[in-house]
């Protein structure tokens, strides 16, 4: 099959499918207008309480993690700056996803006996700014309580931000 033929088929199929079902959004503008008064235009359901809640939750997790780490045992190598850790005792799986993994979830190691999950950053990451987060039990997006910067995404997630310094510099 030629590439051009494939492209034509794709265009036709996607257009045909959208046209076939577009009566589903025939009155969408009215439904949206009705829903808007409870929301703030262009200012989001912004940082305010959501961020407060996220930061408070992150801080609690971090402090809890510190306590668990220092008093119970230190299984995960969380003091290593090349290692990302998340304290999540109840989780059955935790993955790590970032811009540099092209948002592909990578399973993390763990948990240790304190419920700490960890992953070592590969040496091959280029210096730069990267957003990332953790996926708990395959569904819950969790930000990193140890991050110092966060980003509120379009789809209401909070991404953590890390900076990889040029080689030879400390993080």
């Amino acid at each position, binding site marked *: *099959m*030629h*590439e051009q*033929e*494939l*492209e034509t*088929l*794709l*265009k*036709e*199929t*996607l*257009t*045909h*499918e*959208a046209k*076939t*079902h*577009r009566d*589903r*959004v025939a009155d*969408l*503008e*009215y*439904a*949206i*207008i009705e*829903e*808007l*008064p409870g*929301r*703030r*235009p*262009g*200012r*989001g*359901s*912004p940082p305010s309480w959501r961020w407060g809640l996220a930061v408070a939750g992150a801080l609690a997790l971090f402090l809890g993690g510190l306590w668990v780490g220092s008093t119970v045992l230190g299984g995960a190598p969380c003091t290593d700056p090349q290692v990302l850790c998340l304290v999540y005792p109840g989780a059955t799986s935790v993955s790590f996803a970032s*811009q540099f993994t*092209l*948002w*592909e979830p990578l399973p993390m190691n763990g948990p240790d006996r304190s419920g700490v999950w960890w992953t070592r950053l590969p040496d091959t990451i280029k210096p730069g700014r990267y957003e990332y987060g953790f*996926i708990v039990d*395959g*569904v819950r*997006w969790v930000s990193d309580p140890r991050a110092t910067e966060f980003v509120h*995404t*379009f*789809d*209401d*997630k909070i991404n953590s931000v890390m900076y990889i310094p040029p080689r030879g510099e400390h993080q």
Partner: protein
Amino acid sequence: MGEGELELIQCALNGDTSAWGEIVKRYKDAVFGVAIGILGNPADAEDATHDAFIRAYEGLHTFHLDKRFSTWMFAVTANVCKNKLRRERLFAPLKHISKLTKGNDPAKQIAQQARTQLIRESIDQLKPKYRMPLVLRYYADLDYKDIAEALGLPEGTVKTRLHRAKSELKHILEKKGVTSHA
């Protein structure tokens, strides 16, 4: 920007809900097309279209007025779909529903439906990371740069993913017995 679009967006930012309603009216078909392309299911696409316009309204302050609104709106839509896919663990099989289209020629109708269904099933077999740029390129007609911006990926990655998506799609279709008309 479409006619009067900038003014509509500015009015929406000032709380004019009917201005946002006009934006929804202009873009709903395109946004729905992107959503159904990615999700493969009309009901999910309907929900995603609704959510995308609500999220976009809430996040309108992050839109740069000198950029193309459609690209930004598709970025919001792609993110909503990505989130939906993640929530439903949709890296698993999709629940696609296809319907017969209304038309005058039953033979043409059936052929069209069969072909659409075959391509659709093949698209659904692609991983979301390949499906998303494919839909933005071949449904929304975005160029590499805009797809990169919409998906938050480097342009080179978009090119690679599109290339792989097409190779994989070609392979799937050939396995299903679809060959060139030439």
